[in-house]
């Protein structure tokens, strides 16, 4: 059983997106990257991303990640330090949802696997 099912499927992803996005937007080190974005669209993308890292049905590709972050890397200097912040927020989100430490590390590893795509390397 994937963590996606274990956590309760789509409803749990909605809860996770809510917590995760709240943390990300409240972080003044990275929230400038989200200025002026449409939250509804952004949340839909985060839902697709979290569904992927939780092992649920997804259609996430590295290409989407590259395209979606290209302008942030080129124009706003998105780099590893910002990526680390997002990972930290994912970690706290999972902890808040009661996910065990081993499982959290497993998920963080999956999320970390898109780093090169996000940073367009």
């Amino acid at each position, binding site marked *: 059983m994937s963590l996606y099912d274990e956590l309760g499927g789509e409803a749990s992803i909605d809860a996770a997106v809510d917590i995760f996005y709240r943390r990300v937007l409240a972080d003044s080190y990275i929230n400038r990257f989200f200025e002026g974005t449409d939250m509804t669209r952004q*949340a839909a993308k985060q839902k697709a991303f979290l569904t992927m890292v939780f092992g649920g049905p997804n259609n996430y590709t590295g290409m989407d990640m590259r395209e979606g972050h290209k302008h942030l890397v080129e124009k706003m200097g998105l780099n590893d330090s910002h990526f680390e912040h997002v990972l930290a927020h994912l970690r706290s989100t999972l902890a808040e949802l009661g996910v065990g430490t081993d499982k959290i590390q497993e998920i963080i590893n999956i999320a970390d696997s898109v780093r090169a795509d996000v940073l367009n390397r």
Partner: protein
Amino acid sequence: MPLITFDGHQYDCHQGETILECLTRHGLLVASGCQSGVCQTCITKAVKGRPTADSQKGLKDTQVAQNYFLTCVCKPEEDMELAVADLSKGSMAATVVEKQLLNESVLRLRLKCEHEFDYVAGQFVNVKHPETGLVRSYSLASLPSDEALELHIKRVPDGRMSGYLHDETSVGDALSIDGPAGECFYTIKDLDQPLLMVAVGTGLAPLYGIVRDALKHGHRGEIHLFHASLAIPGLYYSDEMNALADQYEKVHYTPCVLHGDAPDGGKQGDIQQLVKSAIPDLSGWRVYVCGDPAIVNGLKQTCFLAGASMADIYSDPFVF
């Protein structure tokens, strides 16, 4: 340039344009939501032609097998024909029965439909320019029980549709409208939930409908409505809103301006800051934000960070 056939008509699809953008540009009303291939609101069936692979991602295999796809992310590579179901409800004629300026740049149009028009307060209609076929969306300020549909038309510099409606239409003229559509409206899920409504400019139109609809449904929670404008001349309907606030103790109306003196009973400052300081904790609130997309996007984030749940924030996703 691929041709899209739908309901017996052919529409040219520009290079790099999605089918949703193409149909919308040609004046068809297609239900859509996220516009990023996730929410599946715009799902449609191809009768001829092959949908692109990315427009079928996330669909069930049974849907893919029947050539269902998402129009919002499908940039067609060949000519396609779409099934008629689920698309445009068809346009209808509506006669202008009243034309009235509400302030220096906002026009109130009241329209009577040739047929009964079923909608929920807060939804929008598409209005079609009779000569050029240009389409713009306008929110309804009226309630379904009102005699006529009410639209608030802001005059946009060099706006082809707003210019036409302001300068060239007269009472008695017939316009072609399409709809309704939109997911920003009142639902009776919790009569005691406090409601925050923030209108920017003509974003007051849908909220003037929604606030009255909520009261009509017997909403019991507090209702705070902020109307934001650049300066005092941009505000309108203050008398109507003050009358509602006088009639219902739970209704609170705050007109806000960015520049110049604060209006009577209102505030001066940045609307996001004003809302934040007026209601610092929005946990458990339902929020409606309508108007200029850039400001609306900021307000949605502000309200979310103040504790409102994402599922409790409503706004309409169009730009006009």
